[in-house]
């Protein structure tokens, strides 16, 4: 009986706080993405050759975790198969956050463009009972900074 109570409490806590945190995160993501829209990040490997820019490595990383409720949903999905939406939103949020942090770093250097962007994903809490708990996303690229004297 006690176990079930604890389980239900965790589920409710996870649902409440998790939903709140996710909504808040999405709001802030959209807001910051709009601000940084003027600074494109592209995956092209060849830099624009006509102008000589300074170039600098920029990095953004984030570790983000799912809540208890979503992990429970994902475990259910494992029985029936299909899209695991709860993990999809987790990875979506993490990728966007990492890219934004990279862009923020680039912007503080006065960059006009970030190119050769690469993502790197890893789950850092392996070995635990519920395999995936949190993921780390790293985004890195080369920021092109126009020369100071224009």
């Amino acid at each position, binding site marked *: 009986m006690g176990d079930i109570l604890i389980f239900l409490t965790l589920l409710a806590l996870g649902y409440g706080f998790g939903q709140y945190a996710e909504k808040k995160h999405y709001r802030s993501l959209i807001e910051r993405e709009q601000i940084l829209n003027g600074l494109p990040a592209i995956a092209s490997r060849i830099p624009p050759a006509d102008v000589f820019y300074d170039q600098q490595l920029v990095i953004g990383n984030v570790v*983000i975790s799912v809540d208890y409720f979503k992990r429970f949903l994902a475990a259910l999905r494992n029985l029936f198969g299909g899209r695991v939406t709860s993990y999809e939103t987790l990875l979506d949020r993490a990728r966007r956050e990492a890219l934004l942090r990279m862009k923020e770093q680039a912007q503080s250097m006065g960059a006009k463009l970030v190119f050769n962007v690469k993502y790197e994903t890893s789950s850092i*809490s392996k070995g635990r009972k519920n395999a995936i708990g949190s993921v780390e996303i790293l985004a890195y690229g080369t920021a092109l900074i126009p020369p100071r004297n224009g």
Partner: protein
Amino acid sequence: MLISNMELIPGKRVTEHLGLVQGSSVRAKHVGRDIMAGLKNIFGGELKGYTELLQESRDEAMDRMQQQAQAVGANAILNIRFSTSSVAQGAAEIYVYGTAVILE
């Protein structure tokens, strides 16, 4: 030392290739952080402690790579890549590698 994930630098010529240089670092956080992370696994959200941890170990791995490049006499490292893997719970290995070159 110029560190970049570009394969070539516009306007500069690579005069000599010095081969692969690498750096790695395995780190863990103290138990308090792990407990906090366990709590976060219930509520969801960013694990700031781990974000910090990985950032620190990435800096260290890059430092080591840079030292290696200096030892072989390079003045730039091009085409660098990052890679992460978890070796145990609460510990992560960060690996950085790139090509050491001499730019003119």
